[in-house]
């Protein structure tokens, strides 16, 4: 016949009485409560005043467009007006960018020259960020725009890791993933994105690939173009004129 050791013996066996449990539990509880406060702080930063920092857009486009952008690097002067316009138009918080400029010097001193590479979300035809999103918050519309449902996104950062261009970031205010929307609100109002409108060198051209007479279609027919990191198989909808292979690979998070 078997029996279990008495309760008091069991407590003694693991060197723990109810009083000790309460003492240790209180210490651990205070630590855990501290952690939960930190977490609550992170959560409430979004769920309060900033809950509608950005609006969502319809998942299905009613327009029969296929948006694409041509970036003519021969015309880019590196003024960063696109970055500033994007920040201003989209109320992008401090410390993060939806559009930015990559700069490097090439050649050997004193014969050097600057090179600039404006980088955006490439609104890929085969976007790697979409399938990995665990909550289906990132989606691709019929018009080719890759957008984020800010009310669904849990801010896990998986899409940020998946993007080979480093085009996504975690919005520090609303605590969700964020990126260039190609100013979808302006496109739907018949206007061009803020970066395109602002570009002083005329390096940025947006248009409809479905329309053979659009500026984008004409440029693509006229010039050889490259895309960033073509080996990733993402089929970007941003085409660069004057992009060399090395610069194409150097775009990263």
């Amino acid at each position, binding site marked *: 016949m078997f029996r279990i050791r008495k309760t008091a013996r069991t407590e003694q066996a693991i060197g723990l009485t109810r009083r000790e449990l309460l003492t240790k539990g209180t210490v651990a509880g205070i630590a855990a409560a501290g952690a939960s406060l930190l*977490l609550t702080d992170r959560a409430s930063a979004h769920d309060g005043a900033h809950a509608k920092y950005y609006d969502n857009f319809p998942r299905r486009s009613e327009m029969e467009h296929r948006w694409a952008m041509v970036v003519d690097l021969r015309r880019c002067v590196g003024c960063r007006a696109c970055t500033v316009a994007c920040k201003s138009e989209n109320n992008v918080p401090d410390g993060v960018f939806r559009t930015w400029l990559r700069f490097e010097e090439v050649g050997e001193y004193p014969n050097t020259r600057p090179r600039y590479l404006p980088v955006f979300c490439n609104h890929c035809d085969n976007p790697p960020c979409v399938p990995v999103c665990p909550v289906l918050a990132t989606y691709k519309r019929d018009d080719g725009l890759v957008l984020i449902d800010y009310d669904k996104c849990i801010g896990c950062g998986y899409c940020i890791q998946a993007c080979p261009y480093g085009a996504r970031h975690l919005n520090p205010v609303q605590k969700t993933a964020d990126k260039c929307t190609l100013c979808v609100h302006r496109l739907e109002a018949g206007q061009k994105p803020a970066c395109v409108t602002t570009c002083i060198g005329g390096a940025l051209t947006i248009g409809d690939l479905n329309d053979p007479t659009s500026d984008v279609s004409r440029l693509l027919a006229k010039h050889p173009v490259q895309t960033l990191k073509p080996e990733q198989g993402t089929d970007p909808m941003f085409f660069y004129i004057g992009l060399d292979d090395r610069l194409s690979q150097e775009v990263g998070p």
Partner: protein
Amino acid sequence: MTSMEWGLPVVAKYLFGGLSAGAFVTYYLWQGLGLKAFRSLSKLAWISAAVWGLMIPIPIFGHLGQPGRFVNLLTDFHWTSPMSWAGPILLAYVVVVLINGRFFYYADVVLAYREARGIRRKALRVLLITKPPVGAVPEASRFWLKVTGALGFVLVLFFGYSGLELGIIPSKPLWANPINPLMFLLTGIISGMAFVLVLWIALERREKVAPAPGEEATLRTLILPALLALFLALNAISYVSLSYSPPSVRPAVQLLATGELAPLFLWIGLGLGTVVPMVLLAGNAILKVPRRWLAGLSGILALVGAFAQKYGFLAAGQFYDAPAGETYASLWPTIEEVLQFLAVLALAYFLFVAALWISPWRRVVPEPLPAAPAKEVAA
């Protein structure tokens, strides 16, 4: 300098998942596969699997930008995102482990319930689920014990999804390796087994009990050193395969091999945390009297190693060769992340203390024989 997108909280999630999975495998090696070397660990292993299983999502709440929306992980399940599998797999796993424990612990819980008082009695009543029997304790259903045990074991294998989370990202060449799910599963099993071993040794040491003959087999088992050897072999395969990867993987590999993360990943993770415990455990198995402290030390080193490997791998994968004028993210956790991690560990400690206090994890001891009547002393 910014912090990494995926830092300490994600490492903690992988670590806790591995600890739970490994503890359940340790439990199943006795309960399901009948390996006697793991008999003495089985009850603590089940408790460890359950507690770490409950702990898995906790660090993620600190990582998510919107922790309040974690329910979306359950409602938007789809196959293309391994992270989407996490919700259903972890939920099913924890439920199956808890139900399995009900059958595994039934007789012990009934006996403990009869003797317990106060909160402990109430907690044991909840664990029993059904009405406590009166009189002789009936045997719990062996069929359901086997079914739930096997189901839990199968779900543990699905924990490889965590390696797949990283393995399917082509933009991160260090991570994008098909061997990753197996590596993550293996480090998980190693760390869980090491944790149970350390816990068992610590509790036995507290009582100052010499190992029973059956328990000696636990100290001599070669399964843990064999798993460590297998992990080293897979590491070698993984890094050979990286030589066929795109050149963009080189900065990350250099970072792990000779760079800022080399002391953590190479020396602590692979050297101190894998090679040394493998040798110590193998040596312990051939000693005339296996040493508890040797096994305990090996277990602690393996635990530290599992953490170091996971952290190094995750951090290096996010590294890129920053050109002049730009900075890359810091490879080390922020103060906030460290504090959160310590607080989560404190919560785990409390759950373990409570679980050990409530549960009858101790072996059931035979009823002492009635004392012989004292001989009358001749006057």
